């Protein structure tokens, strides 16, 4: 990870607060009385299914969408009231927010000017996101992954204390995702506040310290990843078998909760391996693998956001 030019104390971040934030689009409640705080020095995952209100919430924070009620603040101030806001908050919202005929460095010089920052920062942040050789290239020729990196460079132009990232791993290849994960951890390690929205749970589980889970615009859970998973005692297992259909029938007959994850893969929720194992053995189901995952982020997320509680029986899809 390249060195950041302006290393400051690890306490440089600012808290981001959402206070009873609501947004209605006509009769649709996109965000409903959302209240939580994002702490500095940690990577906080803002998780929710598509259409759950994540983007609307972040856009309200940045003054792009006007809240119906409540407010969102950074360090106690509304974004639009912060003098020179890009020096405090950097945002990655969409990787398509570029003029295709503009060169990468020109784009960054432009946002540096808008934020009142030194234009020389353009080359610094290009180096930081791994695009130093593409400074003179037109953005129209960039891949989605390169655009994401450039968007991140834009967000970092003012060396902000708070970073807001909306689905930043969209379009990134596995190397890019791994790079982004390290980068976010690196920034949080400097004491910055990092809030990242995503629906890629397995990826987020490896990255975040804290999680905020929303569904239908409402807060479902928040806290450290450990505290959230500790609150759920339900077991989750994955069984790989050439007899997936028959396994589903057996689980259904035994009243167990399950999810069909693939043609030979079934997720079994809410029971211990000591219960499942004998059941499968007594029905002579061939197993290639039985993996005990405990209470993972994905199963918690699904329970909280799908409206399908663990007490209900899933149907094979």
């Amino acid at each position, binding site marked *: 990870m390249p060195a950041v030019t302006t290393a400051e104390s690890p306490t440089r971040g600012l808290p981001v607060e959402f206070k009873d934030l609501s947004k209605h689009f006509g009769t649709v409640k996109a965000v409903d009385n959302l209240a939580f705080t994002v702490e500095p020095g940690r990577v906080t995952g803002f998780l929710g299914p598509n259409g759950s209100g994540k983007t609307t919430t972040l856009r309200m924070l*940045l*003054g792009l969408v006007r809240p119906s009620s409540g407010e969102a603040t950074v360090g106690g101030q509304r974004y639009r009231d912060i003098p020179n806001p890009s020096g405090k908050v950097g945002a990655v919202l*969409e990787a398509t*927010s570029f*003029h295709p005929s503009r060169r990468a460095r020109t784009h960054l010089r*432009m*946002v540096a*000017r*808008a934020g009142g920052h030194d234009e020389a920062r353009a080359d610094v942040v290009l180096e930081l996101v791994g695009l130093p050789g593409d400074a003179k290239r037109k953005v129209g020729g960039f891949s989605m992954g390169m655009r994401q990196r450039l968007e991140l460079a834009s967000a970092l132009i003012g060396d902000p204390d708070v970073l807001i990232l909306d689905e930043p791993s969209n379009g990134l290849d596995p190397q890019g995702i791994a790079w982004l994960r390290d980068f976010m951890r690196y920034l949080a390690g400097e004491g910055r506040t990092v809030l990242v929205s995503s629906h890629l749970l397995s990826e987020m589980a490896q990255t975040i310290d804290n999680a905020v889970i929303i569904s239908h615009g409402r807060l479902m859970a928040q806290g450290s990843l450990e505290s959230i998973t500790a609150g759920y005692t339900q077991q989750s297992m994955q069984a790989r078998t050439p007899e997936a259909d028959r396994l589903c029938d057996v689980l259904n007959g035994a009243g167990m909760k399950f999810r069909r994850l693939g043609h030979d893969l079934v997720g079994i929720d809410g029971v211990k391996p000591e219960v499942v194992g004998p059941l499968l053995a007594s029905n002579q189901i061939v197993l290639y693998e039985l993996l005990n995952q405990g209470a993972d982020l994905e199963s918690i997320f699904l329970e909280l956001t799908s409206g399908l509680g663990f007490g209900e029986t899933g149907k094979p899809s």
Partner: protein
Amino acid sequence: MINAVRSELLKMRTMPGVWVCFGLAFPLTVLIMWAIFAGAGGEAGHTYSYVQTLNDRRVLLGAGYFSITFLAPITGVICITSEYRQKTITNTLVFTPIRSRVLGAKIVVTAYWAILMALLTLVITMTVGVFWDVQLGGSVSSVLGQAGAVVPGLIGASILLALFGLGFGVLVKNQVAGILITIGTVFVLENILVALARGVLHYNLNWLPSDAAGALAGAVSKGGFGGGGHNGGGPYSSLLHWWQGGLVMLAWGLVPLIIGYFTTFRRDVT
């Protein structure tokens, strides 16, 4: 505000559409000059000649007015609609969250580029036009001597036409629609309305955009330049005074700008 203006200046400078407008200004201005020389020496334009009357000298110097009439509004439209077309409005508002500040910067930058466009056409007429005129037998001083009478009106009209385009761009947000509405208003709708007003209502409809801009530019050159055929064409064809034309043109720019600001521009960016 200064940061926003500096950013908008760079933004416009790196926008191909703006340079296309500037590129078109050259051949269009030369074309108009050719027409002036073609008509200067004979009644039917059979003979090319240097410009001989005071009015013709001013018309030659202000030959860029025709290209400005539609290229300046297009520049104004592009200034704002490219933000929505390329979705750069999100970044713009993240870096400058106070929207009135963004719009203020765009007004300043649009005016700046409109001045540059007017100056470009003047450079063309003062170099190519004068050289051409001298080749046909005219003198350098006879044309350049009229600069003081032409330049202020030409620049003023260019600024206000560009703001007119910016206003419609803010209002409609869609680039193609903005250009079509602006150009359609100036070149099609206005002519139809003027003709209908004259023919049916016997009313001199001289406060529409191109006539208002023409009044501002034309009055400075004592009639003729910018006014086209409307001047001296009868009781229903006279242009407004230059200051009236300027005020009317300012209103044509500001009214859609203000309506657009309070309707489309302040809306949520989702």
